[in-house]
Each structure stands twice: as structure tokens, then as C-alpha cells.
């Protein structure tokens, strides 16, 4: 079963069972510091295992905020009065090297791996 915050992408990929949470991307399982919410969302996903309709998507009632205004600015494209389309290119360059959250993580990985294959970093050629 799948947890998703992108209903249309999930409709297209068409997994057996899904639960849709209408939150901004990056919050598929809920909000920061709300373990009970995380748990209820995961439990809702587990509940779909008893469903038989192929491709079923269960819509959860939770809302991200009092309004849905956050949706307006997602990948926004505007047209200027003189007919030009304007958008923000917020894509991150596709760096081909490991991108650590913190420098200390890079050091920790280097210490741990020193010249040997790691059983939990699967599929990496050292």
C-alpha cells in the first residue's frame, strides 16, 4: 500500500492500494512533532489492506491549514501583461556525488566505510 500527497501521480502509477493525504510534498506522513497524526495516517494506510478494489485511493480528511492557499504557489507559472510566461526555476542541480545533510555525516560515512563495501548502502560501487 502507498501513502501519497500527489493524487494525480498515484492515479497514473496505479498501485493496488493508496491513502491520499492532501498536504504539501515533503509531508507524506504528517506534520512535524505530531506523532499521533503520523500514527493515524499509517494506520489508515494499513487499513486499506482489507480492501479489494484494484487501484483504490482512500482520501483522508486532514487539512494542512485553515485555507488551501498553499496550493496556488506550487510550481506556479504566471503570464505577464505582454504575454510572456514566467516561472521560478527552483530545481536543484543533479550533483553526481553523495549529498550529505551535514559535513559530519560525510566524515562518519568515510570512517565507517574506509575501503570496504557496506552491507547497508546497497548498490554502490566502491
Amino acid at each position, binding site marked *: 500500500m502507498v501513502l501519497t500527497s*500527489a493524487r494525480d501521480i498515484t492515479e497514473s502509477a496505479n498501485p493496488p492500494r493508496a491513502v491520499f493525504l492532501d498536504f504539501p510534498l515533503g509531508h507524506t506522513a504528517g506534520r512535524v512533532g505530531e506523532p499521533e497524526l503520523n500514527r493515524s495516517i499509517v494506520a489508515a494506510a494499513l487499513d486499506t489492506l482489507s480492501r479489494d478494489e484494484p487501484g483504490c485511493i482512500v482520501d483522508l480528511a486532514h487539512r494542512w491549514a485553515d485555507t488551501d492557499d498553499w496550493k496556488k504557489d506550487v510550481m506556479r507559472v504566471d503570464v505577464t501583461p505582454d504575454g510572456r510566461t514566467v516561472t521560478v526555476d527552483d530545481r536543484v542541480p543533479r550533483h553526481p556525488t553523495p549529498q550529505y545533510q551535514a559535513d559530519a555525516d560525510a566524515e562518519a560515512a568515510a570512517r565507517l566505510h574506509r575501503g570496504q563495501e557496506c552491507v547497508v548502502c546497497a548498490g554502490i560501487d566502491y
Partner: protein
Amino acid sequence: MSDRQPPVRYIDRTRAQYEALGYGTYGWASNPDPPQMAHLDRPLSECCVGMIATGGIYAVGQTAFTFKDDVTYRAIPADVDTAELRATHFAYDLTDARRDINVVFPIDALRALAADGEIGEVAPWLYTCMGGIYSQRRVLTELAPALLERCQRDGVDAVLLVPV
């Protein structure tokens, strides 16, 4: 509470944004045929439940993901210290994931459900990878079969997929 707006149509918006930027179109996965259904042969309270998340999550000590068609994965032990989990990705705002990894990798929720007997147990390993991988071919022929094999070897009854 004001009126609800319909779900964001990410496929349409991505197409419009890429067009405005002069990029080629993105090839979304499309599987119009009804998916195959598997059925649990025992109650959830007796099931071993795994998780695969695409948010670029790794544990301290593991090699981080790259941002260029990375089809590797990381095996996260089920008893990992949540504070040791990190997130790295190019395609979503990491701010909240870095404050509380449970928003993209609900490991504490899974462990709580197991502790309360609602699921039988959490699988010994949980798996993470990147999303936004351009090569569907490599996902289908390399990443997905590798993850399937790992989950089967772990003896899971069901797997929760958490894309970002």
C-alpha cells in the same frame, strides 16, 4: 474553514513549468491496467510490516544519495535511533523532514503500532531510496527487483510505500 480546493495536479503543473522553462516533458509512470492484488492471509496483528520510502533518507554512517539518477538504496535497521536519520533530496523542501524525519519516514509510528499489538512486528530492515529518478527503466530493472528481493528475504507480509 474555507472551501477546500481540489488536489494539486502535479503532472499538469510540471508540464506547464517545464514548458515555460524550455525543458522537455517529464515521462510519468502510467499503468492504466488494473493492478494485481495480493491478500493478507492473517490478521494485521500477526503481520510483519516493512516500509520503503523515497525521500532520500539515510542513517549517520551510511553514504548519502547523489542527485543524479541514483538507483541505490539504504537498509535502515528497525531499531535505529530516530535522531540518527537524515534526509537529502533535490525535489522537495527538506526543512520539515530534517526537523522530524517521521513526516517522510514514519518509523516511530510503525514501532508504536507494533508495541501496541496493532501490527505483529516491524520488519528487521526498512528501505530508503531516491525519488525523481529519471530512468524508469533502471527503477524497473534494478531498484525495484532489488527491493522486492530484500523484502521477501526479510519475510514481510506487507510493505508501506512512502513516496515524497
